[in-house]
């Protein structure tokens, strides 16, 4: 008897879990699904250069998590919404609570005749590699990783050194002590790229300025240890740092909290992090996945869909600083000037990953 009750409970639990795992469709914006369904599958993704009727184009977005994350998923969704409003394409996003759902969701888009399928994070690379070769007529894109060996895939990476340079410029302008803090998650090339760009930016404004750079750890915990990041930041502040920048994922939240507690400026990363501490977050070094989606959809509508590797940089607005109320007119002018110089190549920011 007891055993039966236990089994019944277990089954209920499994069912609940399965229900919770089912993909949730966020939005289906088209009023008449039937009409559009006919219009699609006829046109291959790399159709001739003729104009493509935007209203017939369907863009599917496979999210890495749920909306409301105030991070990459919300950002990608904003890019998708932009495309809907400004280009008139049909869009749909699918929330995935589990990595096993990525491939399934993408496949469903392909079966339903979507022209473009967007993956918004490097963690979806495996799903992309499974699905993309099977649907050569669909154009795929992925963010933040390089997949340049499949014909119908466009991939985007960020020139993080450029935006870090701008962050460094601003940090040096706002610092009164000339000491600036940097916290990285792990000492690996993708993060050293931020550090190097940041240091060059600081040196560009203040040759005497020093950047204290510290790292959270050496294993996977490095990205999820805000307590250690907070201690590191407090130490940097104790040594005179009055502006701190992070490239440490979840750990970086500890830096923002430490700066807020001590009343010094912090600089967020990837997305606008000012909501975490509105009084002390100076700006955020954006890596704009939404811009990548716009570029990708635009290229399709223009009749020459992107494939291969594209770098998101200052030139295509794929990286940049958030303008906040802390910016003076001088700051704005200088940032605009330096951005122009980076684009023109007059300022060359070191990319530590260029070998």
């Amino acid at each position, binding site marked *: 008897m007891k055993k039966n009750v236990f089994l019944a409970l277990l089954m209920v639990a499994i069912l609940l879990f399965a229900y*919770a795992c089912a993909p949730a469709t966020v939005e289906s914006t088209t009023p008449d699904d039937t009409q559009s369904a006919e219009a699609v599958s006829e046109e291959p993704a790399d159709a001739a250069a003729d104009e493509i009727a935007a209203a017939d184009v369907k863009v599917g977005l496979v999210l890495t998590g749920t909306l409301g994350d105030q991070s990459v998923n919300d950002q990608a969704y904003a890019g998708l919404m932009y495309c809907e409003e400004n280009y008139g394409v049909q869009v749909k996003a699918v929330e995935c609570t589990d990595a096993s759902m990525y491939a399934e969701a993408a496949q469903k888009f392909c079966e339903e005749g979507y022209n473009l399928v967007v993956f918004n994070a490097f963690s979806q690379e495996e799903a992309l590699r499974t699905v993309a070769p099977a649907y050569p007529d669909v154009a795929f894109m992925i963010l933040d990783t390089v997949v340049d060996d499949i014909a119908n895939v466009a991939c985007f990476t960020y020139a993080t050194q450029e935006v870090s340079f701008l962050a460094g410029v601003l940090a040096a302008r706002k610092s009164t002590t000339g000491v600036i803090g940097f916290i990285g998650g792990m000492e690996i090339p993708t993060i050293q790229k931020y550090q190097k760009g940041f240091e060059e930016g600081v040196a560009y404004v203040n040759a005497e300025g020093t950047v204290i750079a*510290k790292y959270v750890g050496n294993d996977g*915990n490095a990205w999820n*240890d*805000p*307590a250690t990041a907070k*201690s590191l930041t407090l*130490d940097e502040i104790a040594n005179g740092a009055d502006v701190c920048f992070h490239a440490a994922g979840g750990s970086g939240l500890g830096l923002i909290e430490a700066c807020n507690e001590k009343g010094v400026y912090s600089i967020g990363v990837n997305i606008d992090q000012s909501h975490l*501490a509105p009084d002390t977050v100076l700006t955020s070094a954006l890596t704009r996945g939404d811009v990548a989606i716009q570029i990708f959809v635009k290229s399709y509508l223009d009749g020459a869909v992107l494939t291969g590797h594209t770098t998101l940089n200052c030139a295509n607005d794929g990286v940049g600083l958030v303008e906040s109320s802390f910016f003076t007119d001088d700051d704005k002018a200088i940032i605009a000037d330096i951005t122009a110089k980076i684009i023109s190549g007059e300022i060359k920011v070191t990319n530590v990953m260029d070998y």
Partner: protein
Amino acid sequence: MTISITSILARMFASATPIALAGIGGLFGERSGISNIGLEGTMLLSALAAAVGTHFSNDPWIGLTCGMVCGLLVSLLHAFLSITVKVDQIVIGLVINIFSANASVYLLSVFFRNKGASPTITKLPYVSIPFLRDIPGMSEIFSNISVLTILAVVIMLIAQFLLYQTRFGLHVISAGQNAKAAFVMGVKVKRTQYLSVLIGGLCCGLAGSYLSISYLNMFVKNMVSGRGFIAIAAILIGRYNPVGVMLASLFFGLADASQIALQGTVSIPNEFVQSIPYVLTILVVTVNEWRTRKLSPV
């Protein structure tokens, strides 16, 4: 750049608090014969519970209560499975850790629609201790100290008293040393073990809450980051006694604080400094074992 001793000491207390809380609680289970390597997972779920409680009530004290209740519930599960059902203790501990790592992210997305971090929340108060704050050079530490750091010291004193001065403590020790003999002598072994594991859960609840609603003002995925395992090392180094565990935790805290201060200032790689506490753990355990072996007749 100068290395400030006061600053290192302040960092030391901050790093040591969660380790000491979990370690002092956890040693009761160990003493009663029930190993709990699930401290890490218990802390993680408690940290989340504390954040959720604080977020929805806007009162960190209610959050702290939620964290403690969560710690109790998780350890109750551990106690039930290891004492009543008699499943292998290590297996249950592992299961709790893996379960917590995933369940916390799932629950995070349920409560906050975000799989990375909770929104910012109100923190437990930081207080200033009279007299201690007047010690020259110590004002930075004692004028701004977490209530949970103070509580850790109080818990250490209570634990020391409970373990060595009360009948309950005697039962815990005897249950762990020889459960059969203790049973014959009339000790309610299972009840003692349950209570011991629950004490550990309660303290893990405090330790987890310290991370999410005292030192920080949010829950971040996986934020315990191995502190539960370091607490187990502290139990070993502290030779299963509350004062010893506290000293071991302070030592770990000091190592962490030194590593933080030394990064980038000296030519020793920080990975090396970070590994010192673990090398020491192995050394202490080896020496202890060796001494015990030499004394034992067999």
